[in-house]
């Protein structure tokens, strides 16, 4: 009898927010996939829920590790925990380097949430960096155009896990991350990270990485987009106010704590 696939795999809202954050960090990034297609269903993996893993033979590699298997774990059997983000070679290299820094540092607490990632440094083969096993192996060449990252299934809906991944891809250092999650004042960055202050039209103009993040988040479409120049000017303020009204709030044009939280950013001030 031909098997009928009943695809139950779902994407978490947190993963969708992470995808948008990724696109706000990297100017070239575009979402390339969260939930696996029929071909993924046949192979299994972290784009596929535990419920949809293939076959009844040997269990799929994404369903056997301590932080993946359920049962005995009691986490979701319906959600994928992987994300593919395509980027230009320049951004692939930057993102892969940031993730490798975490792979290399056995003391980095962000490692506890990540299962593995596939990336490319701009030359040679793409590689898979398995944080759980501590191995690096060849990855198929499509990973020269997208980073694949899988979160351990245990953390499928854990805000801390998604925050850790965002921290990693945005280039936050281990020291900054540890200080932030422990609630102590982090080492002062030379640029303002998202979620570290309110943003408003001011004189002189507010500038920084956080402004650029917001500009990319509310950027609009081809016909009405704003520049992502990292300067909080009137057009940015108007665009932010429009975005706030779209979310049912008063359009103040000031990016405050609630707005950062809506963008999936932990507030740090």
């Amino acid at each position, binding site marked *: 009898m031909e098997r009928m696939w009943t695809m139950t795999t779902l994407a978490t809202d947190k993963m969708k927010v992470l995808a948008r954050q990724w*696109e706000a*960090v990297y*100017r*070239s*990034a*575009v*979402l*390339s*996939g969260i939930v696996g*297609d*029929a*071909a993924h269903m046949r*192979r299994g*993996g*972290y*784009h596929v829920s535990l419920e949809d893993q293939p076959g009844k033979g040997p269990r799929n*590699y*994404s369903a056997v590790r301590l932080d993946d298997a359920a049962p005995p774990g009691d986490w979701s059997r319906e959600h994928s925990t*992987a994300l593919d983000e*395509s980027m*230009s*070679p*320049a*951004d692939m*290299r*930057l993102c*892969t*380097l*940031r993730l*490798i*820094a975490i*792979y*290399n540092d056995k003391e980095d607490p962000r490692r506890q949430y990540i299962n*593995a990632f596939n990336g490319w*440094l701009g030359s040679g083969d793409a590689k*898979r960096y398995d944080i759980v096993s*501590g*191995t*690096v*192996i*060849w*990855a*198929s*060449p*499509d990973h*020269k*155009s*997208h980073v*694949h990252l899988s979160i351990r299934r245990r953390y499928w809906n854990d805000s801390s896990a998604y925050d850790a991944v965002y921290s990693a891809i945005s*280039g936050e*250092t281990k020291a900054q991350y540890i200080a932030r999650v422990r609630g102590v004042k982090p080492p002062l*960055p*030379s*640029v303002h990270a998202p979620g570290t202050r309110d943003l408003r039209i001011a004189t002189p103009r507010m500038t920084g990485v956080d402004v650029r993040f917001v500009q990319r988040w509310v950027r*609009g*479409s*081809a*016909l009405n*987009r704003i520049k992502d120049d*990292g300067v909080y000017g009137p057009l940015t303020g108007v665009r932010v106010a429009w975005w706030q009204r779209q979310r049912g709030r008063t359009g103040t044009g000031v990016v405050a704590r609630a707005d950062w939280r809506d963008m999936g950013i932990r507030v740090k001030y």
Partner: protein
Amino acid sequence: MDYEGADLYTGTCIGGPMNGMEAYSRFPKGFLVCDRDADRAWLYGWDGTAFLCTHPAGMILLDEGDETVNSRQRAARESDYDVIAAPWLPGSDVGDQERLDGEDVDDDNTGY
């Protein structure tokens, strides 16, 4: 071990901004290449040997809304076309305190 390795469609691009470039698609109909700086996208269809650009002038890249109005979001969720970023775009900004020394990979266990 099998892991996230896809069945790939590999070939040369013909026409459009990727003319002459080698490309990969994980999906049978080809890929959509998106240039977020220029707000344009190009569709490359797989003909069994190569990727043919369907509209060399490209299309406006809709970047808002869900998959009902946004072709790239829809393509990313369906299994016909791959979605890739424009390879010609420059890199993103890096914090000036950030050290990027990850090329020194601790890969004693590299398993080629």
